[in-house]
């Protein structure tokens, strides 16, 4: 059997494409969690980003406005979460759930008028280089700018957290808000910023889905990716580089479904669709079993409210 080497390249590229929204959302949530805030609203923020991006693209016709508008929408919706958890000191878990329920409802409401409208073509970079190198060309060239950004993001995030002063402040706030506050750091401000940044990245992840990956609006089109992104942060033990690995595994599981069906493997389609969720559970079990390691790598104040008067 001869396998076309470029076909292998194409499969890898399609796995990477399906990993993009997971990487974006996970890296955003990772920063939020590193500051000590657990935002379970990822799914809600993503779906808001998806409809905002698609709606703005259809209405204004401008892709740039649409992409940045989706990020802004993510920021706006996460502001609700930030205000509640940081200013009104509400429970992170409950607030995040409310955000997801609200986001799914609002997106479907706005999206009602955008069902069935075809998307636009999103420009790709380096298209001319597509046939130059066997195997690598389809992987490296001919993708949208969001694609390249997503694969750079884990490295940028890692550099930011390890080498920059602001990154250090974020980690300090997450690991010990009391001592950070005593050092004169405005804990609430830092957490606000990290939540809004997480919102922007989730918005972008959603926009990627509705504008680039499957360019159309479908109700509930995030289909649990937000929750998988949350699981990926645990999987990565809060290390951005490992998010890349995790996202590729889940991207692979998504793509495998299509190819298994294409080559006629007799497994019920529902089982293949359930695979990413089942694997997420298995991976979480394997990672979390070592409770000492989890305790060491989890931001110490994760999910706990901080109020200066306490």
């Amino acid at each position, binding site marked *: 059997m001869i396998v076309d080497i470029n076909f292998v390249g194409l499969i890898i590229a399609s796995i990477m494409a399906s990993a993009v929204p997971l990487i974006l959302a996970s890296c955003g949530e990772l920063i939020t969690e590193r500051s000590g805030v657990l935002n379970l609203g990822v799914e809600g923020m993503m779906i808001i980003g998806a409809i905002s991006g698609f709606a703005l693209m259809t209405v204004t016709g401008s892709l740039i406005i649409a992409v940045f508008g989706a990020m802004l929408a993510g920021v706006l919706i996460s502001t609700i979460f930030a205000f509640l958890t940081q200013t009104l000191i*509400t429970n992170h*878990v409950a607030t995040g759930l409310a955000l997801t329920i609200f986001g*799914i409802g*609002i997106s479907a*409401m706005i999206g009602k008028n955008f069902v069935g409208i075809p998307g636009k073509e999103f420009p790709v970079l380096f298209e001319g280089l597509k046939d130059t190198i066997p195997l690598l060309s389809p992987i490296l060239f001919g993708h949208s700018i969001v694609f390249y950004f997503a694969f750079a993001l884990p490295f940028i995030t890692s550099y930011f957290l390890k080498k920059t002063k602001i990154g250090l402040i974020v980690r300090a706030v997450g690991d010990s808000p009391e001592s950070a506050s005593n050092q004169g750091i405005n804990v609430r401000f830092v957490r606000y910023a990290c939540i809004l940044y997480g919102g922007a990245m989730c918005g972008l992840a959603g926009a990627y889905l509705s504008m680039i990956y499957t360019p159309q609006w479908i109700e509930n089109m995030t289909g649990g990716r937000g*929750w998988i992104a949350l699981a990926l942060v645990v999987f990565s033990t809060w290390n951005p580089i490992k998010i890349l690995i995790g996202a590729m595994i889940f991207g692979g599981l998504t793509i495998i479904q299509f190819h298994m069906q294409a080559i006629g493997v007799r497994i019920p389609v529902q089982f293949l669709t359930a695979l990413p*969720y089942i694997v997420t559970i298995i991976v*979480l*079990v394997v990672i979390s079993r070592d409770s000492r390691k989890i305790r060491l790598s989890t931001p110490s104040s994760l999910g706990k409210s901080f109020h200066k008067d306490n």
Partner: protein
Amino acid sequence: MIKIVKRDQPSKAIFFFTPVLAIFLTLIAGGLIFYILGFKPFEALKFFFIVPIADKYGFSELLLKATPLCLIAIGLSFCFKSNNWNIGAEGQLTFGAIVSGGVALLFYDQEGFYILPIVILAGAIGGMIYASIPAILKTYFNTNEILVSLMLVYVSKLILDYLVVGPWSNPEGFNFPETRQFSDSARLPLLFEGLRIHAGIFLAFAAVVISWFVFYKTYLGFQMKVSGFSLKTAKYAGYKGKKMIILVFLISGACAGLAGVGEITGPIGQLHREVSPDYGFTAIIVAFLGRLHPVGIIFASLVVAITYLGAETAQIFMQIPKYTGQVFQGMILFFLLASDYLLFFKFKFIGSKK
């Protein structure tokens, strides 16, 4: 000048007042959203909250929707009180429906008084089995129960989909994705001629009474409360933490499973793809709105059930999208959490009196 001051201890009166405040704020915000969407706010709110329950039929529908919400929320309150975040009740409901539906299908051509109890029991067991997965993984493998229980929701819906399309689909059903109709002996009896409200409501009532007793009259209830306040204290007191985690998940799974039974043996009468319009998720809001108190949950389930009916009515009469129901549900929880601020802080007017 107004200053915000921390209360010495949370105010009990405000604890039960804030849910009412949250509902009121939701109505205002909802009216505003209707106005932005180009509807007359008062008319829209009327179609949303009053018209659907104005007659006998509407009231029966309200109870029909409130029953599963109340039942699941009662179960969830066991988890939430003891600091266990089971957010996968929707999956436990679905799995309960699958197991009890499977049993009901075994008896599809038989009659007998014994069938319904077996079917109900099967649903409770199905819910418990499904809830035991996140519980066991949490206690023995230290795995986050939020993510596991949530992932299992997707899995359960796919299992159901596989069964009703494949092995369990009705052989005389022209390939529709549904099973055979259950025998009449496997159906919950209707309470009134011509209305859909069924005997499942008694299951919800039983859950309310039992949970009230457990919460306020037993040692277990006390242990749950202490663990909810502080896991460390519970540990020092020597409570068997792992046992309790598994127990509250089993209770909560059983309640969700029973809600699933109520749906398929009540209004539906067979298994098909959608046995629940996200009751399992909405019940989380009901549990909070009811302040994790059995009586509070009764009222909360009625209020939230209106959002389901209102969304349908508003869609028919005013072409308001039906997702508005979900928007309202999200807003109720937002406002409830926000108004909790008043529990711990109060506004003090300074300067008027010196």
